[in-house]
């Protein structure tokens, strides 16, 4: 049996899994620390890609876009949290609805300015690498590498810096953190900004692979949530493992004869959904990863 389509899809799944992991990580961080279920997270991913597109149009440089877009979206995230979400005191239904509203507004604004036609972006790294008897775009591997690097960076920030300590303290016990002099509100805003920036970063990275479109966040949102919950709400390790597993599963399934991408997606979603029913707290739920 010819295994190269499986290998090919495994690579695709692996690469895309890292992108999903970035998105899920942002979502999980925000939920784990602020308690906000951010329905706008997909829109922030999309916004990153769109702003990245504009930056590339202006400067012609992808890497500049990769730095600028997440920064802008991160700042936007901080503003949204401080102005619109904080007064809601993290009540689940209220934050879901409010962030859903933000999603609507972002999506429509992009539709009105950027337009409804999907745009494509050239790969900034055009080379191909031979794997077996096939060639694989080098850029995709770069995506995986950059995502992994960013995840490691986040890990370092969380576990080796003072800000990271603050974040983890607030997550464990917000009241105690306040009495220790940690500026909890600032931490909340920063975390939301960080989560938004992560989504935007993933958006820019993904834009040469998928096309930039005002609805690209919508498609990814539900999968991202599911990954976060299957991994265990608030568990970063869980989000990574769940993201890679889901993406690998979906892509490998599509390599099977007779299975088209949509069916593969359905099967992968069903599998994850079933996993969630069996383990409602997720794989690493309640862990303080």
């Amino acid at each position, binding site marked *: 049996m010819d295994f190269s389509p499986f290998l090919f899809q495994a690579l695709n799944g692996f690469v895309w899994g890292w992108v999903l992991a970035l998105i899920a990580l942002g979502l999980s961080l925000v939920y784990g620390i602020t308690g906000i279920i951010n329905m706008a997270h997909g829109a922030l991913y999309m916004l990153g890609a769109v702003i990245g597109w504009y930056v590339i149009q202006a400067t012609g440089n992808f890497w500049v876009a990769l730095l600028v877009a997440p920064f802008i979206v991160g700042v936007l995230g901080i503003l949204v949290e401080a102005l619109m979400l904080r007064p809601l005191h993290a009540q689940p239904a209220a934050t879901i*609805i409010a962030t859903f509203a933000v999603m*609507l507004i972002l999506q429509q604004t992009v539709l*009105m300015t950027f337009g409804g036609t999907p745009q494509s972006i050239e790969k900034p790294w055009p080379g191909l690498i031979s794997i077996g008897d096939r060639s694989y775009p080098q850029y995709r591997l770069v995506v995986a590498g950059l995502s992994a690097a960013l995840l490691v960076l986040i890990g370092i920030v969380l576990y080796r810096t003072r800000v990271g300590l603050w974040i983890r303290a607030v997550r464990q016990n917000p009241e105690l953190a306040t009495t220790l002099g940690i500026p909890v509100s600032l931490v909340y805003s920063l975390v939301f900004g960080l989560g938004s920036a992560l989504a935007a970063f993933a958006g820019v990275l993904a834009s040469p692979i998928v096309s930039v479109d005002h609805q690209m966040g919508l498609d990814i949102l539900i999968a991202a949530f599911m990954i976060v919950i299957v991994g265990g709400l608030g568990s970063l390790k869980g989000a990574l493992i769940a993201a890679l597993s889901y993406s690998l599963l979906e892509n490998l399934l599509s390599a099977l004869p007779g299975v088209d991408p*949509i069916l593969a997606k359905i099967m992968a979603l069903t599998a994850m959904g079933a996993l*969630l*029913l069996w383990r409602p707290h*997720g794989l690493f739920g309640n862990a303080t990863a």
Partner: protein
Amino acid sequence: MSVSIKLVLLLLITVLLALAPSFISVFQLSLLSSIFIWGLFALSFDLLFGYTGLLSLGHSVYFGLGAYGAALSIKHFQLEWWAGLGIGLLLALMVAALIGFLVVRVKSHGFIIVTAVTSLICFLLAQRWNGLTGGDDGISFSVAPIALGSIEWPFSSQIVRYYFALSILLLCFIFLWWLTRTPLGQAWKLIRENEGRAEMIGYPVTQLKFVVFVIAGTFAGLAGATYALTNRFVWAGLFHWIISADGIIWTLFGGAGTLIGALLGTGALFSIKEWLSEVWKTGYPLLVGSVLLLLIRFAPNGLMGLARSFFERRGRS
């Protein structure tokens, strides 16, 4: 406002609505018919979310199943309108029972996402099996007129469609009005308010959640079947979770947990949507987003909540 005043008001509105075809345009009748159908959808959602506190993003599944159940059974088996309606309703009920059984055990955030996943899966399935479902292009069909003795009321007539939708809405509303006043209806409120204590008092919370999930799904299916019959067109997009989101928004805008709020919210926002689509096509989601933000921050109990505090303030002064 006492119950009797409310009843009189409702009666008045019903009479007005019944007489409407004699003094409003066909276009407005069509708008109202849509409001009745989507209002029923919002009502079913209010039962689930407003009364019991279960935020389901998968409610569109049952609407879609009701619509497709009616459409496909009528199209392929030439059934009468009432058989199509019944099949749509039954299909929604059975799937709601199946999914509900699995899903009500999941805790709050997981529940929201798992229900969203169910609608995503159904939407993808509907798109993929486009031979059966017509995918995003949908399928249209024709149905035999409603026959009463020798009188025939064809679905091609806007007036027939209007009264059809209105009758179904009225019947469902009366039933749900009664249901929410029974101890069962109150039990759902207890679950919303303090699930843990409800369980400790002796209420079988998981079973009660299952019951409301199935009932709400069934009424969503009925709304879907009515949609199919009045539009004689269904498409895969009916399954998308964005449709569930619409239901949530309309219910919240009118005021969750009041039943009437769901209808008011649907009426208001649907009309605005229609009006905007003439004037500013892409403006509607922007408007809804902004309204939602203001709403959730300053008037979380929607129109009905605002009305209630208005009357309370007047009562005190």
